[in-house]
């Protein structure tokens, strides 16, 4: 057993209001530079929708992630290393600028410098790459809130999981349903981007599992951009290097939560430590699709188990890390309550960011001008949910619907449990039956409620000290470590000739 610690995340989608504050916080800190304008290390997608970059989930097109063939995992983007070398000259699977959008600004000076005339002056859009006037054809949230859903939502690759009838129901105007999906780098435990990098520039930090690109080693071969199934690695066209979410590690190392976590208006984001068994990676991803979620859960170790704690200490994991793992909200959501699920685990990269699926408004239909649905069947009508269970299963459990159903039942049971406490308009026996069916005890329901609805910032972010520079300074000369804290760049990063 090779116990390692991982700073992992839970996004509670039931609480997400789709305000993009996280995206803006991230953009302001990290991607305001030339060459990064189009990058959104954090973005929020409307589902159903084609996402960013367009149709990133279509792995027939982009060939991201791993493929389970025979007894081995192979990169979809390169079956062997020879293909990796051939792809250096032209990568056939890499998205181009037009799959994202051409970043633009406006000629604001025209508003002030326009000569006197009969018309109001306008500021025309200009490309931030060429400086020429462009007509804007897409943007980072082009299909936000189902805008243009005929074009976008209907091309969502995940709709394949649904029957035609379900699809038709979903897109009926009175039924139309959507959810938000905030996405950052998943900091996978079995990352395909790291495996694809010819230069060996991508790596996973041993202490906290953050996946990073060494900018001094990156040579712009672009293999990672195709290999990441979540398309969370972006090519900086100016510097000729790839960049990705760094989980705000300079903030983490000074005891702050990442900017997108800290700024989250709906407080949907949780961050904590998971202990996992590195020896069983990647074997845990070599199982049939429907058992992938269970397989990933099984490598996450119980931080209260004395054997695990002992093995962790032997591996050099500090007491603070073990403490954080024992109080981790992520461990509770993922393993104890089994509410949080990985996004697209069928790509077999073992993402360490988990999503609590949204509770579903149920279907109804308009009859005699009245929107009718049956409140009695609120709980038992998951099969009639507007966002069908099959759609959620496609996103969060590799099409295993029973995992989604048990998570949703548990969430619903917690609602009934709290409702009967506050507004006793439901029969208590009925609630108990619901609790039994959802397999949740009173204590657990109370704990889930508290963590979902009333958490303080210290409940949501249980961060161990990763203060690297504080660990360095008392032990040795600071001169020796010049430039090895923060982002690590001591020279101005300039494009080569």
């Amino acid at each position, binding site marked *: 057993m090779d116990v390692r610690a991982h700073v992992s995340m839970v996004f509670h989608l039931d609480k997400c209001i789709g305000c993009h504050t996280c995206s803006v916080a991230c953009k302001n800190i990290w991607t305001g530079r030339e060459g990064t304008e189009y990058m959104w290390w954090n973005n929020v997608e409307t589902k159903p929708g084609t996402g960013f970059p367009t149709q990133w989930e279509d792995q027939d097109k982009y060939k991201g992630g791993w493929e389970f063939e025979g007894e081995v995992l192979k990169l979809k983007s390169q079956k062997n290393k020879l293909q990796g070398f051939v792809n*250096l000259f*032209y990568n056939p699977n890499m998205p181009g600028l037009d799959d994202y959008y051409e970043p633009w600004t406006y000629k604001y000076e025209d508003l002030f410098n326009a000569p006197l005339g009969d018309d109001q002056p306008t500021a025309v859009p200009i490309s931030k790459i060429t400086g020429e006037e462009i007509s804007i054809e897409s943007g980072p949230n082009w299909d936000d809130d189902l805008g243009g859903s005929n074009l976008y939502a209907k091309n969502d690759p995940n709709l394949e999981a649904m029957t035609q009838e379900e699809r038709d129901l979903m897109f009926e105007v009175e039924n139309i349903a959507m959810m938000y999906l905030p996405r950052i780098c998943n900091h996978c435990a079995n990352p395909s981007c790291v495996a694809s990098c010819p*230069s060996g520039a991508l790596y*996973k930090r041993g202490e906290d599992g953050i996946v990073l690109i060494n900018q001094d080693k990156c040579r712009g*071969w672009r293999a990672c951009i195709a290999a990441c199934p979540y398309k969370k690695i972006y090519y900086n066209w100016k*510097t000729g290097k790839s960049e990705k979410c760094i989980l705000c590690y300079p903030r983490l190392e000074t005891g702050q939560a990442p900017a997108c976590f800290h700024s989250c208006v709906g407080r949907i984001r949780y961050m904590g430590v998971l202990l996992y068994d590195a020896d069983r990676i990647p074997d845990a991803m070599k199982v049939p699709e429907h058992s992938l979620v269970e397989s990933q859960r099984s490598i996450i170790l119980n931080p209260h188990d004395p054997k695990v704690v002992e093995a962790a200490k032997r591996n050099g994991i500090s007491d603070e890390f073990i403490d954080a793992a024992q109080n981790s909200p992520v461990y509770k959501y993922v393993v104890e309550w089994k509410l949080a699920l990985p996004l697209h685990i069928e790509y077999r990269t073992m993402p360490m960011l988990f999503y609590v699926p949204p509770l579903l408004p149920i279907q109804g239909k308009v009859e005699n001008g009245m929107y009718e649905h049956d409140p009695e069947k609120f709980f038992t009508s998951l099969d009639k949910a507007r966002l069908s269970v099959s759609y959620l299963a496609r996103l969060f459990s590799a099409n295993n619907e029973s995992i989604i159903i048990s998570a949703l039942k548990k969430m619903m049971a917690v609602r009934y449990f709290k409702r009967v406490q506050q507004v006793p308009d439901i029969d208590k026996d009925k609630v108990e039956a619901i609790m039994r069916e959802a397999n949740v005890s009173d204590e657990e329901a109370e704990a889930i409620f508290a963590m979902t609805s009333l958490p303080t910032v210290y409940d949501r972010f249980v961060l161990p000290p990763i203060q690297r520079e504080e660990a360095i300074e008392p032990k*040795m000369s600071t001169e020796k470590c010049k430039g090895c804290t923060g982002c690590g760049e001591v020279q101005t990063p300039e*494009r080569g000739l």
Partner: protein
Amino acid sequence: MSDFFLLISLPYVAMFSLITVTIYRFKSKKFSLSSLSSQFLEKDKLFWGSVPWHMGIGIIFLGHVVAFTMPKLLQALVSKTNILYILEGIGLIAAMFALGGLVVLFLRRLRNARIQAVTSNMDLIILSLLTLQILLGILVATLYRWGAAWAPSTVTPYLWSILSFRPDVSYVASMPLIIKAHIVIAWVIILFMPFSRLIHIFALPLEYITRLPQIVVWNSRRLKEEVIIAQLEAQSRRHFLKSAFGITTGLILLSIGIADKVIPFFRGPSLSAKEKEEMLKNKLEKMKATIKQKELENERLVNEYIYIADLKDLKTDEGLYFTDYSMKPALAFKDERGLPLLYSAKCTHLGCTVTNKVKNGKLLCPCHISHFDVKTGDVLDGPAPKALPTVKFILMDQSQQIVINPDKSKLNEYKVYIIKEGNT
């Protein structure tokens, strides 16, 4: 002078810049190293440019490396004409691929607004140089055919003479301008290489072949090692000094050992008395040859006409070598009437010396098998473009009088002289 600058000074400047700047960038300017791919901004034309270009230039480069490192092997191979044709054919096709790809890449860079946003002046310089170089290469391959046959004995020794610090341009000095230009532009490209995007050639990620899929980097473990070293240093300075002394001594001994091997490699092995004697003799002979050469030059500078041979000593089937007024080899024969027949022995193709034996009325240049008519000097077959030029001569009798109308009965008494250009 320009030969010295372009074929000796430029190569050393270019190689110096290649080595030092490349090392500097890989050590201290790592961020600036990148393939600088523009596939993200434009991908369709890139495919038709980048793939044929890299494929073509890869094959061409390999061919040049073989000619440079294994000239003997290449010569043995191309002595069979069908192998020669195949190799040259592959080379030409690869060059066409490279040229086609390069033109696509060049046009794309000039015409696409997005690509222009990431185009530097150096990119344009490099693209121009590469296009010119490929065009010159194709011209050399078609105009001066079968480079695979002649390059290993001309350009390869020149390159080795540069690399072994005994520069000698004589191998290429008399080559046509186009071949010289091809060589010079190659050095210019090497000179620019470390300052341009071409440096990505050295970033080829060969380590990927053997690498394991996942990479994990531990900050704390790296840190711990550093702490242990620091503590060791502090605890036992004497131990440190001891080990430093040991390491220094070891390094000195090692460098002596290496120097012992390296210096003789450049200086040549130490000599025994006999070898020294031989070397001195050789030197003496070389100096004598030089003196002779200088005497000949002086003779040609001072005298209006120079004695070559008695007419009776000339033969019809075997020429007599002599040195003409321009210090080039020449041949003297006798024709059927018993009168002298003088030609320059410098082949009009690439300047080899023509053999003096006449076979079936033909003279042979052994380098590229050109045949010349011994009666007129005209080209019979082979790559030589022009006839061998004749050398002007006069006949003199025993009383040193110029013979205007040679008397057939007195032919054996006449002597043959060559005369300066311009005299009649």
